Each structure stands twice: as structure tokens, then as C-alpha cells.
């Protein structure tokens, strides 16, 4: 596909954003209590599409909300009636600004899960109606390792429009999908000074190289994939998880964790059924109705998490579940790093 690359400057990007926000239902990182979360915005001043990765929650909740209504029901003497829920607030046409590449990769992962044995129609609808505008980070966060994983950070299908901030204040905007192209047509960049700038691809590559060079962490994922699958019973899992306090935060803020539970809230004679986040780090995650719990110990739950990210998912879908965003490490109250853990375990003897 021969795609146009638009080049603009900071002011142009600003105007581009403003126009988008004015014209579309737009979601972008909004700062609250020092942390950016994707919220509906009505002006550019409310949000910061260039929010730093360390302080930004993933965009996952816009597609897989922390809590979503599945259905409503009433129960009276005439019987139980299931009703449609209110309109899904996330299903309409919308644009997301400032999504990180790792989140975009996360969406690709979720796409596979929710399009697998059961098609999650709500999720699909949200995906289809959303234009993802993803901005490449300037430099790596402390715990980032996305560049050394099994995906090409520069080319992600979930990004409809890619924004790269090159040198000399040049900003490159590129549609990556048809949806993105259509979007750019209806939301033109007005200060675009040239089209199909010959050196654009190269300059974008240059930015990427500089970006990739800023990484502190580099993961040899092949070795990890291979070793982890062999050492299920290593006692090292107990060591690495010893200071875990079992708080579930890692799963709640992870862009790819997709486990959920069903929660009913019945009050009086009507009720709502919700689909809510759950976490495999939760001791009750695997508790069965009969009382048996196959993962009663903390290290087993940690093992599940590590193995799912680097072994199980790969076995089924051929890629790693972890996108290397480092959010779990940042949010962990005791700073357990998934990077450290898997490396340490992978090195251990069986």
C-alpha cells in the first residue's frame, strides 16, 4: 500500500488534535491525581496525548471496560424477564488519541482472544467503531522492553493512524489502515506542507532507532519462551514471588490481561449483570464451588501469570502475551518486575 505520509509541526499537530476533538467523540489521556487515564474529552486542554508511559494507564478499558453491563433483568410473579441493557457507552463512533504502541499491540492480542471460540460482539463493535491514533514514545520508560519482543513496534495493525515525532520538530502522520485513511480524509491536516515526503519513511526509521537505543531492558524472548516451558516445577518461582503481596494490580493495569468474572447486582426485583476484571493473582480466582483450589499458593499463581504471558498464550496463538510496557512493574507496590522474574526463572535449573 502506497500511503501518504503527512509532515507537520507542533502547531499543526495541535490544530489537528483540536479539529479531531471538535468533530469526533474523542478519548485521550486525562490526568487525575498524577496518573493519566483515557477519558472522554471535549477540549485539548483537558488531556495530554503525549503523556509519559510511566504515568499512563493502558487504553484497554475503552474496549474491555473494568465493569460492563451485560444484561438487565426483572423478576416478579409473572416470571423473570431479561432486558436489553442501556446503550453501550463505548460502542459509538469514536477516536482515541495518544494511544501507546504497546497498547495497540495489546489490542491485537485481545482481538485474537475475543475472536476465538466465542466472538465477543460488544468488543468487536467497540473495535470496529474506533479509530486508534497512536503516538510513538520519544524514549523508553524505565521498565519498558517492547522493542525486544516478538513484534514489530513500527508496524502494528491496530494503529489506524501513526504519529511520529521526528527531528527538528517535524511530525509525521501516517494512516496505516483503510479506516485510518478515511479518517484522515475527513479530518485533514491543514498545515501539511507536503505529501509523500520522500525522506519521511527514513526519518521515521531514524526516530525509531533512536527510540530503540534508549531501552535499558532487552529481553531474549526466544530463550525465555523455550526455557520457561521446561521448568514448570522449578522452586525459583517461590523465590521470585516471595515478596509479592497478592494485590492484583498487575492484572488490572495490564493492557493484555483479559480474564473477567460475572457479577450480579440484584436489588429489589430487578438486577444487572456485569462483566468485571478479575485477576489470576487473586487467591479465589481458581476456587471451585466445591471448595477445591488448584492454585492455593501464591507462587503457583505467579507461575500462572508468567507462564501465561510467555508460554501458554504463545502455544495457542503463536506470540507472546506480554507487550513489554512495564506497567505492572511500575504499579507494583513492591516493585516486582516481570522482566526480572522471567529472566531469573528462565536461568534457573529445573
Amino acid at each position, binding site marked *: 500500500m502506497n500511503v501518504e505520509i503527512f509532515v507537520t509541526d507542533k502547531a499543526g499537530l495541535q490544530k489537528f488534535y483540536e479539529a479531531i476533538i471538535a468533530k469526533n467523540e474523542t478519548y485521550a489521556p486525562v490526568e487525575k491525581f498524577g496518573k493519566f487515564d483515557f477519558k472522554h474529552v471535549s477540549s485539548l486542554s483537558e488531556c495530554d496525548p503525549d503523556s509519559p508511559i510511566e504515568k499512563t494507564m493502558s487504553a484497554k478499558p475503552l474496549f474491555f471496560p473494568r465493569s460492563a*453491563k451485560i444484561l438487565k433483568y426483572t423478576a416478579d410473579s409473572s416470571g423473570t424477564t431479561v432486558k436489553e441493557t442501556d446503550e453501550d457507552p463505548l460502542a459509538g463512533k469514536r477516536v482515541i488519541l495518544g494511544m501507546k504502541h504497546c497498547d495497540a499491540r495489546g489490542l491485537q492480542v485481545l482481538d485474537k482472544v475475543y475472536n476465538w471460540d466465542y466472538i465477543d460482539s460488544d468488543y468487536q463493535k467497540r473495535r470496529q467503531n474506533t479509530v486508534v491514533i497512536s503516538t510513538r514514545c520519544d524514549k523508553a520508560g524505565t521498565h519498558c522492553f517492547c522493542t525486544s519482543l516478538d513484534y514489530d513496534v513500527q508496524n502494528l495493525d491496530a494503529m489506524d493512524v501513526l504519529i511520529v515525532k521526528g527531528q527538528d520538530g517535524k511530525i509525521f502522520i501516517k494512516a496505516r489502515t483503510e479506516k485510518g485513511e478515511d479518517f484522515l480524509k475527513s479530518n485533514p491536516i491543514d498545515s501539511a506542507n507536503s505529501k509523500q515526503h520522500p525522506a519521511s519513511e527514513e526519518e521515521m526509521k531514524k526516530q525509531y532507532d533512536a527510540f530503540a537505543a534508549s531501552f535499558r531492558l532487552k529481553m531474549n524472548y526466544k530463550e525465555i519462551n523455550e526455557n520457561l516451558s521446561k521448568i514448570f516445577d522449578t522452586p525459583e518461582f517461590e523465590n521470585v514471588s516471595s515478596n509479592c503481596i497478592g494485590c492484583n494490580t498487575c492484572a488490572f493495569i495490564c493492557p493484555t490481561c483479559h480474564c473477567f468474572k460475572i457479577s450480579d*447486582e440484584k*436489588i*429489589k426485583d*430487578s*438486577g*444487572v449483570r456485569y462483566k468485571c476484571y478479575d485477576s489470576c493473582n487473586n487467591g479465589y480466582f481458581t476456587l471451585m464451588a466445591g471448595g477445591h483450589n488448584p492454585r492455593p499458593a501464591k507462587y503457583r499463581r505467579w507461575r500462572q501469570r508468567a507462564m501465561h504471558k510467555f508460554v501458554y498464550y504463545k502455544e495457542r496463538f503463536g506470540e507472546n502475551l506480554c507487550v513489554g510496557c512495564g506497567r505492572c512493574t511500575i504499579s507494583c507496590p513492591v516493585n516486582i518486575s516481570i522482566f526480572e522474574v522471567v529472566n531469573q526463572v528462565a536461568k534457573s535449573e529445573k
Partner: protein
Amino acid sequence: MEAVANNQLVSIEKPEIVAPPNWEPVIIGILCNWCSYAGSDLTGTSRIQYPPNIRIIRVPCSSRVDPWFLIKSLQTTADGVLVSGCHPGDCHYITGNYFARRRFLVTKKLLSFVGFHEDRVQFSWVSAAEGPKFAKVVAKVTEDIKKLGPLHLYKKENFDK
């Protein structure tokens, strides 16, 4: 804001919410069995009239009242809650109301701190002999909560109208 000009009731916590016409608050009254419930029975036997907004729940002792109940009430059905027990020293269970009193104060203050008007939760000591007092307490609580307007904070799905 137009509605306010017409002297319509607004929620004190959220002035943008206007009470529907003929709005009547729902008040949950949690009464201890030995004093206040008996007192409310006496109000009945004495045919003393009071506003009909209160719905009464019987508990053995005011110390049975978990702050949970107040939070749950405010999040679902109630616009206000009244908890009533025996006068200090008169507790059928000797010391129950002393423990309850501490919890009530902290709960009331915490709710008011996070944005509920103080009068949303109220407490009283009503003895089994104080039928008239019970009627007065209910009348006051009802009047107070009518002034505060409907409660629309953190309501559960079915209750946020």
C-alpha cells in the same frame, strides 16, 4: 437552574439534580428492639401521628448496626437514615449502645467529609416510654431530609433515577 427559581427542591449535594414534583423522601429507621422499637409501638398505641416517610427495621440492639447498613441504605433505597437505640445506661444488653455511639459518630463524620450532608444520617435515643419523642424525632428527620432534597450519590444501578 430555572427550576430552582420556581422553588423546586434540589439535591443539596448535587444542585444540578432537581427533585421530581411531589417528591417524598424515603427514610430508613433502624430501631433497637427493647427501647426504640417499643417506643415506636407506643407512638402507635397512643395514636400519635407522624410523617409516613419512615420505613422501620428492627434490630436487637443499636450495637447490631454495622456502618455497612447506613452506607448500603444511602446507596440504594434511602434518602436518609435514622438509627435509634436505648438511652446511655439503659441498654438492654448493658453496654451495646456505648460501642454503637462511637461507630455512629465516626460514620456520620466520614459521610459528611466525603460529601453527604450531615443530616442524611441521624441518631436518637428513644426509650420504650417515649412514644411522643419518637414521633417528634421522625417528624424532625423527615423535615430535615425534605430540605436536603433527593440523594443521588454513588447509587446502585437501579436507584439512580
